């Protein structure tokens, strides 16, 4: 209901306007009729006043003898509103149309004679100037008047000029107001309500902080423009903030990876080589010793063992920090990774199938894939209790497809991939969040498919850099 409230209000206003307009039209018509009947009775009255015939028939013989002079006198005392003849008058005409008597200026009305038809009802006649007259023509019935006519006419146009003006003005005002309100409603709908709805839709459709804001409004209204501008600024800020956060996270990931690599190299070149050298010297010393020095030999054995252990531990640390075998290329590195993971998770078979064309990937990106796979296998083994994990890395066109499948217990992926990966980080799904982060750093996308009892499948697609996709494998 609230969604259509504005529209409903606008419809109500429009309907009320239409009702007002119709009522005004009705009132105008009623007024027209009232004026019409007023004019009719006026002209009849006029004709009655001057018509001796009425007197003959109405009041007996006395009046019949009244001479035309008396009528003339009456005409002179006629309604002052009619003086001058423009507004109307009375004429007494002979059979041949000769004017016997008339009110002041009534000769002007003579032109009405030719169209006039004798009768009791007034007729409406329009002259060449467009003035309306109400005309009554009566035949006089007195003896000496026989064959004469009395013609009474009033000009509606002249008499009612001020009133008609007011009415015309009124109706025009009403029409103009109605039209304005109607037009206003249309404009309001077209330029305010619709753009507002569109803005709201676009804001709702916006992935806040993920996309640059779309163009919210392109119309002429300053208010909407500044509103959408303000929202756009907010959205841009959210985007920038998100970018900053992402960059911060990728910086963190990269800094961590760099630190690990540095540390691994230091361990490899320093302590590990020294341990190895020490082992060699101990071995040489043992060989150089005469056979009878039993106690000394045992000390050297122990020393060698200790240093061997140290060397093994350092190797393991190196491997954990930043595996040196990553330099062998992606195919070998993934295979080594898989072998080590299979060793680390008892009873889980780990198989990888890597397109050798992908050996052109730089170490950084190979390492990211290795880490993603480590995370995935760890998830499959620990959460999914998978017996087998299988990965395929393929080059397809200018993109790399990396799919990881397990036969574990699975989970409701819709529940997890629907949520933001950032949220996962805080809800104990750090592994998935990390994987997603690494995929994002590769410039790719990750899709998770799983349902309880159906295992889990992860599909990762990321683009090759230009030099990677054109470089031919060795």
């Amino acid at each position, binding site marked *: 209901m609230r969604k259509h409230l504005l529209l409903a209000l606008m419809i109500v206003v429009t309907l009320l306007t239409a009702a007002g307009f119709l009522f005004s039209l009705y009132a105008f018509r009623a007024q027209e009729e009232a004026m019409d009947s007023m004019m009719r009775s006026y002209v009849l009255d006029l004709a009655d006043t001057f018509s001796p015939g009425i007197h003959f028939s109405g009041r007996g013989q006395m009046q019949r003898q009244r001479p035309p002079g008396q009528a003339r006198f009456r005409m002179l005392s006629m309604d002052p509103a009619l003086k001058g003849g423009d507004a109307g008058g009375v004429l007494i005409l002979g059979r041949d149309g000769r004017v016997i008597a008339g009110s002041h200026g009534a000769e002007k009305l003579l032109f009405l004679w030719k169209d006039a038809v004798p009768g009791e009802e007034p007729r409406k006649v329009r002259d060449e100037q467009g003035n309306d007259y109400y005309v009554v023509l009566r035949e006089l019935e007195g003896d000496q008047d026989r064959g004469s006519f009395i013609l009474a006419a009033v000009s509606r146009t002249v008499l009612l000029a001020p009133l008609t003006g007011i009415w015309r003005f009124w109706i025009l005002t009403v029409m103009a107001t109605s039209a304005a309100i109607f037009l206003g409603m249309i404009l309001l709908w077209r330029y305010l309500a619709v753009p507002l709805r569109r803005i709201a839709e676009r804001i709702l459709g916006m992935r806040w902080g993920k996309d640059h804001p779309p163009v919210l409004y392109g119309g002429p209204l300053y208010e909407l423009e500044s509103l959408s501008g303000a929202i756009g600024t907010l959205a841009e800020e959210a985007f920038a903030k998100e970018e900053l956060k992402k960059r911060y996270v990728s910086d963190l990931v990269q800094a961590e990876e760099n630190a690990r690599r540095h540390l691994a190299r230091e361990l490899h070149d320093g302590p590990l080589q020294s341990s190895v050298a020490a082992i060699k010297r101990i071995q040489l010393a043992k060989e150089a010793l005469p056979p009878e020095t039993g106690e000394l030999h045992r000390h050297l054995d122990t020393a060698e063992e200790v240093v061997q252990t140290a060397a093994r531990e350092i190797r393991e640390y190196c491997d954990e920090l930043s595996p040196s075998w990553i330099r062998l290329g992606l195919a070998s590195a993934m295979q080594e990774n898989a*072998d080590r993971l299979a060793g680390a998770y008892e009873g889980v078979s780990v*198989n990888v199938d890597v397109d050798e064309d992908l050996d052109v990937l730089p170490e950084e990106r190979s390492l990211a894939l290795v880490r993603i796979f480590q995370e995935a296998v760890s998830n499959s083994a620990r959460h999914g209790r998978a017996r087998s994990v299988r990965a395929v890395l393929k080059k397809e066109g200018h993109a790399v497809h990396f799919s990881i499948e397990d036969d574990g217990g699975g989970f409701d992926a819709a529940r997890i991939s629907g949520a933001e990966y950032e949220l996962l980080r805080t809800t104990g799904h750090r592994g998935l969040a990390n994987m997603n982060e690494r995929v994002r750093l590769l410039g790719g996308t990750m899709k998770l498919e799983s349902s309880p009892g159906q295992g889990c499948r992860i599909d990762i697609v990321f683009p090759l850099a230009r030099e990677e996709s054109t470089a031919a494998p*060795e």
Partner: protein
Amino acid sequence: MIRILLADDHPLTRSGLAAWLEKEEGVELAALASDGESAWQSILELRPDLALLDIEMPGAGGIDIAARIRKNGLKTNVLMLTAYSAHQYVMASLRAGAKGFILKSAPLEELRKAVFDTARGIFYLDPSVSLTGADEPGEELSPREREVLILAGQGLPASEVASLLSITERTVAAHLTSIYGKLGARNKTEAILLALKKGIVLLDELRFLDGERGTP
């Protein structure tokens, strides 16, 4: 007398190994190198019987040098040395043409065996490169399984192995599973190394196609 070149960028390790080589009977330390390029120059000049190469050296590493030796058809055998144990190092070394692989921390007896074996062209693998089924006798592989294993050992992905043998990837996977079971291996690399150790597959079989693939 076996003439040996030793290349290792780490001075302490290098001098330790050199000290042993100088003392050892039947071997002659022909040259020392501290990086890949100078090792390669010495090999070209002196044509030693055996090159003891560190995998990780500045510039060209041991694997690069081994590949160059094979490419140039030199008679010098290669024993790869590393402070670091990784199956893929072993595989990469063997594919590059190395005859053996040994950890720098290996006991002197193992080192001695490695040097004398590889100098004669016999495959040697450091026992500490962990292989689960190494001591079990194991079953015989079928000829098809051997083919699958050799192709996989050449580093071909399952899809390519499948297309070369005109079988499906699923069948390749099934063959591999059966091979793992027979050899007692946990994965492809172990299976290949175990097969090498047991003589089921010969080192040269792993390299043959690999070399052809290098020059298409």
